């Protein structure tokens, strides 16, 4: 029997989840929850590339999500760009900032990136909170409609707003996962995982470690930016919370919970931590307590994350 590659298997599972899940939705509200899971899954897929593949960590990725989100709010109004192009502008700004911030830092040890990104995230959220004339401050700002659903209606495809964003974000997640999985088995991805394993050895086989880390950082910033744009566009509203410290922490926690080295695992982690507050209303009260605990417990007892550990166990039983 020809064996399914890990990449195809992952994509099939994801596609099946996107298509089949709505059959079990108790109400239309769950399209919204689903879309939220996909958006978070997309952001966390970027963390997989940075943390899972390359072994680096960012504590300020929400900053890039904020840039992506506010680009969609501001560029249409101030620059007259259509919202879709505004998202592209967000990607360009996020990528450029990631490059500028990452370049001096990624030559050094791991915790420098953690601290600098922490500072970066705080800075972005501070700008968004304080530049009231531009961003509306802590109260947030309205985001123009993407306009695609109207276009679909003109073409005779009439779906609800919830359904539209559910499938739109689902497709975005599938594309994001496909790209991350492509990268994993590619020469660049192999070099990233190699430098994660041993920087010294990676250097001696000719890998320009600093340059590759920078590439991973920029790519993952682009993921966060797109996720931020999708979030802003579907909510038609955005507040500085999207760029906040706790949002950065959420992303990291989602990744390490499911498994930062595995695209499917990280998306699973995003699913669990997105669903939790929906199911348990008291969760919001204890969010920090839970996130902090999950981070510590996973790193001490289950460093690979839930899904890879589970798969390893199952495989162990087969043999």
């Amino acid at each position, binding site marked *: 029997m020809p064996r399914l590659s890990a990449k195809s298997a992952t994509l099939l599972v994801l596609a099946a989840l996107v298509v089949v899940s709505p059959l079990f939705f108790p109400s239309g509200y769950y399209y919204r929850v689903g879309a939220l899971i996909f958006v978070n899954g997309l952001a966390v897929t970027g963390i997989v590339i940075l943390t899972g593949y390359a072994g680096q960590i960012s504590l300020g990725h929400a900053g890039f999500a904020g840039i992506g989100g506010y680009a969609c709010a501001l560029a249409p109004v101030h620059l007259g760009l259509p919202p879709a192009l505004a998202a592209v502008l967000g990607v360009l700004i996020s990528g450029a900032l990631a490059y500028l911030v990452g370049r001096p830092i990624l030559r050094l040890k791991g915790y420098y990136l953690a601290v600098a990104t922490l500072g970066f995230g705080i800075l972005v959220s501070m700008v968004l909170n304080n530049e009231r004339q531009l961003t509306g401050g802590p109260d947030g700002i309205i985001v123009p409609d993407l306009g695609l659903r109207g276009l679909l209606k003109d073409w005779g495809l009439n779906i609800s707003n919830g359904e539209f964003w559910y499938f739109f974000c689902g497709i975005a997640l599938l594309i994001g996962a496909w790209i991350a999985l*492509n990268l994993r088995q590619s020469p*660049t991805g192999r070099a990233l995982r190699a430098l994660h394993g041993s920087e*010294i050895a990676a*250097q001696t*086989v000719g890998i*320009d470690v600093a340059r590759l880390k920078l590439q991973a950082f920029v790519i993952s910033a682009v993921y966060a930016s797109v996720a931020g744009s999708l979030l802003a566009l579907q909510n038609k509203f955005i507040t500085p919370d999207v760029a906040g410290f706790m949002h950065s922490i959420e992303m990291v926690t989602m990744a390490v919970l499911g498994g930062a080295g595995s695209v499917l695992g990280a998306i699973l982690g995003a699913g669990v931590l997105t669903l939790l507050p929906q199911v348990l209303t008291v969760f919001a009260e204890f969010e920090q307590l839970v996130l902090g605990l999950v981070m510590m417990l996973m790193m001490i007892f289950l460093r690979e994350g839930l899904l890879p550990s589970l798969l390893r166990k199952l495989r162990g039983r087969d043999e």
Partner: protein
Amino acid sequence: MTLLSIEGLGIAFGGIKAVHDVSLKVDPGEIVSIIGPNGAGKTTLFNMISGIYQPDSGCVLLEGEDVTGMAPFRLASRGMSRTFQNLQIFQNMTVLENAIAGFHLQERGAVLADLLHLPSSRRRARAAEAGARALLARVGLERAADREAGSLSYGSLKRLEIARALALRPKVLLLDEPAAGCNAVETEEIDQLIAEVAASGVAILLVEHDMKLVMRISSHVVVLDQGEKIAEGAPAEVSRDPAVIAAYLGSEEAAHADG
């Protein structure tokens, strides 16, 4: 022109001279061995030559060009490759992937092509994989290709590291105790492999504790003691040198006395 030439290389850590004024030369096809008691500075010398440490004095010339203190990844693209005394394997990857990583300089290309799985990216990856499989066969690891590297025995990991270093098609190969921890049969195999590689025109610089191996395959031996070169010459000459015997046997005796 000499392929690799080291002139007056020296480094100090916290005021203590770890290596002082060491010079040597390696030509294509030659196997030059560096021997000396523990703490003589052999690995430190390797780390300076391969760009991991910045020497305080002296220079390293590769094909006549000054490459002193150049970053290891740049040296790799100029044809220098090495293995490590205490193994630097990519534990998070399979055996095959470790070997493919050695082909990085040949398989790397546009990141965008890699992200989108374009034909050019697949072609590069396929070529590297074919090369890696051939190398694994050469070191006798073809059947372990899909295993996780961390699960291999010590001797196999040593060979995997050599395979990875050979993947660069180096002009100069630095081997830091390739036979350490290997049994007699494995040592024999590594011995043969090194001789073959040298015969194909690669300049080899070797640090090794197994004296029989050193005496058998070296074309030239350099003896270090307490960071300084105390003797050099053909294996037979060096083994008769009184200074070498004193330094070497002295420390051997000390080691015996300790044990």
